[in-house]
């Protein structure tokens, strides 16, 4: 155990090794791939537990650095280090991925791409662990990009679905925009600080000018916004739901999308000195939380509801970061990972059982899916922030710090809490209560898929009581329980739930009534404020036009002509030069002697030429 804590790299190496093993021998038996996947998840979880236990004992786990690329500006080093923050993140990643691996054993049992799926999930775990345990931004960036690739491949897991392929491409391109910001921030930091590991950075950060620090902080935030699906780079996450549901639970709810929050928490010393960047984080967080929650209210696809809910909850975390309490943001990350992955896994069971993702075609699934319903209820309560679940505690802290930092922002977050409770209630009612709208008889989906949501319900409910120790373990500033805020929040949430239940008690008809009354606004919200088409018009089409123009004018008119010109010039010269090669030996000798004469004249008159060239000097 101690050894594991001091060698955090194992959390990277073992999943990577297992990914390779899955790819090599995964086809040997039906159980090999899932077992290896569970092994890589367990190794990450054990690493995290070991680190946390060591930190709890008051000892800092060992770190090490490998000098990688020495250059004139400094040494690019890569290495690992571990502390309470790293340990917590590893535990979250390991625990959720363990559940997801078990769940996948049932969910993906009949899938032809199982081996690829498990190999990629293990590789993703390795990448995520690299992001977490890396001792600097360099290793973090490598893992960050690897995660992006795995996310791309897993969203497009069902390669024959055109929608999945398009969603994968979109996710890759949009997160790439953020990654460019992150890379620019890292480069800027490197050129000014001369180091990229957190320890050296913390030492030299006071010597940097505030402008540089603010720029770096904003650029890193762009990376975080892209990865964590914050406005305006959030548009990839709803489409990412085309991937298998366990992938959505692990990557697009609990871990990868939380990496942005983790990044900012890890580089917090920079943000402490860049107040402007934290204001930006607060603004983006609140706007995203409220906007995405509104969109979630009108979605008809259960996974898209959860996706917008994820965006909204990540907005809460960014708001907490913006208010200056990264420990609170991390705590919400932990609780959110538990209850949101629970909701996704339960939704996966529901989809598996009802054969549709459309909320309007579900209903009455409570009977026959008792376990799933119970698990979902715990997750939904946590998401709505109802006492005594974990979401209540973590959201209470965020509301408290944001309200005391900035009252209007806090008010907006209270509103968001009400809306959150409303859409949670709406989905729950539409799925589990009311008349059954599908002919398919609801049924439980086997042990592998029923047990993980139930296990996840334990942290989803209970984590709230571990707020103080877990935040203190991360060595972050603890925020106590605030009764007035908690009372208002609970009241608002209960109100939201009540409205949701009341409006939707008779099934999806309320949606239709709303749609009729609101008309265009409804469609506008449902399409995520039509941001996609805005992006389409403002970014995609101009760049496509630019590319076409570049093809027409630069590639064809310039490059192609130059290439063809070089070819025809060579042809022309060759045609001319061919006449020299006439087979007449005496002609060749003449050429040789002409060369001799030229060289001879040069050598005879070299002194004079030299004087002429150097201007007599």
């Amino acid at each position, binding site marked *: 155990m101690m050894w594991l804590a001091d060698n955090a790299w194992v959390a990277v190496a073992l999943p990577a090794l297992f990914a390779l093993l899955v790819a090599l021998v995964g086809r040997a038996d039906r159980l090999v791939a899932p077992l290896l996947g569970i092994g890589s998840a367990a190794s990450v979880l054990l690493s995290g537990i070991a680190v946390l236990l060591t930190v709890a004992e008051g000892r800092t786990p060992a770190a090490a650095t490998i000098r990688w690329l020495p250059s004139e500006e400094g040494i690019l080093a890569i290495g690992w280090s571990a502390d309470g923050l790293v340990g917590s993140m590893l535990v979250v990643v390991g625990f959720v991925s363990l559940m997801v691996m078990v769940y996948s054993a049932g969910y993906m049992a009949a899938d032809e791409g199982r081996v690829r799926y498990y190999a990629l999930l293990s590789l993703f775990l390795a990448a995520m662990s690299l992001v977490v345990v890396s001792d600097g931004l360099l290793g973090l960036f490598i893992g960050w990009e690897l995660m992006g690739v795995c996310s791309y491949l897993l969203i497009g897991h069902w390669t024959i679905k055109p929608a999945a392929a398009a969603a994968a491409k979109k996710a890759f391109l949009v997160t790439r925009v953020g990654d460019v910001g992150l890379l620019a921030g890292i480069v800027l930091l490197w050129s000014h600080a001369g180091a990229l590991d957190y320890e050296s950075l913390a030492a030299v950060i006071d010597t940097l000018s505030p402008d540089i620090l603010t720029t770096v902080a904003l650029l890193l935030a762009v990376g975080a916004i892209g990865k964590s699906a914050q406005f305006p780079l959030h548009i990839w996450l709803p489409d990412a739901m085309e991937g298998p549901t366990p992938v959505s639970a692990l990557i697009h709810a609990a871990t990868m999308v939380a990496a942005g929050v983790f990044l900012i928490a890890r580089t917090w010393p920079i943000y402490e000195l860049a107040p402007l960047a934290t204001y930006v984080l607060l603004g983006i967080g609140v706007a995203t939380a409220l906007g995405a929650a509104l969109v979630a209210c009108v979605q008809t696809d259960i996974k898209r509801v959860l996706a917008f809910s994820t965006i909204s909850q990540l907005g809460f975390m960014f708001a907490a970061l913006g208010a200056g309490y990264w420990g609170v943001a991390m705590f919400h990350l932990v609780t959110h990972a538990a209850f949101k992955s629970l909701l996704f896994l339960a939704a996966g069971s529901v989809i598996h059982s009802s054969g549709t993702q459309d909320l309007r075609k579900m209903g009455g699934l409570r009977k026959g899916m008792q376990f799933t319903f119970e698990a979902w209820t715990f997750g939904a309560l946590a998401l709505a922030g109802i006492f005594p679940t974990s979401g209540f505690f973590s959201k209470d802290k965020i509301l408290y710090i944001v309200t005391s930092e900035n009252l209007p922002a806090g008010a907006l977050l209270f509103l968001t809490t009400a809306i959150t409770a409303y859409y949670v209630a709406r989905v729950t009612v539409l799925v589990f209560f009311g008349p059954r709208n599908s002919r398919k008889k609801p049924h439980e989906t086997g042990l592998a898929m029923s047990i993980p949501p139930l296990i996840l319900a334990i942290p989803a409910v209970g984590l709230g009581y571990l707020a103080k120790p877990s935040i203190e373990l991360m060595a972050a500033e603890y925020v106590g329980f605030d009764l007035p805020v908690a009372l208002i929040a609970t009241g608002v949430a209960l109100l939201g739930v009540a409205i949701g239940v009341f409006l939707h008690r008779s099934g999806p008809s309320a949606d239709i009534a709303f749609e009729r009354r609101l008309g265009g606004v409804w469609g506008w919200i449902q399409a995520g404020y039509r941001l996609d088409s805005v992006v389409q018009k403002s970014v995609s089409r101009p760049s496509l036009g630019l590319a076409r123009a570049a093809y027409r004018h630069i590639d064809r008119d310039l490059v192609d002509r130059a290439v063809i010109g070089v070819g025809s010039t060579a042809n022309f010269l060759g045609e001319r030069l061919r006449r020299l*090669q*006439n*087979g*007449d*030996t*005496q002609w*060749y*000798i*003449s050429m040789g*002697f002409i060369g001799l004469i030229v060289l001879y004249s040069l050598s005879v008159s070299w002194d004079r030429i030299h004087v002429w060239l150097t201007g007599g000097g």
Partner: protein
Amino acid sequence: MNFVLVASILFGLGLYGVLSRRDVIAVLASVELMLGAATVMLVGLAGLPSLSSQGGADPGTIEATGLLLLVMAAAAAAVGLALLVAIARSTGRTRTDELTDVRDRP
């Protein structure tokens, strides 16, 4: 006016012959002209004190060097003639504008 000019004229004549004669025998004869001119130039220059810091090579050495050069040139001429005859025998061609095997496949 001295031997340098004469040897240069002889060399130039030989070169012109090599470049312009169409018959391989005549070309070879012109090569002999060039060789002769060069040897005369060498032997003549070797006796000049102004060309070396030691004030001219000693006559015996000049003579020995010239002799070796003569023998070598003669050997080359012999081989050249033999090749010429062999080419003429195998291809039946003796004119330089017919012997374009460097370009055309024989």
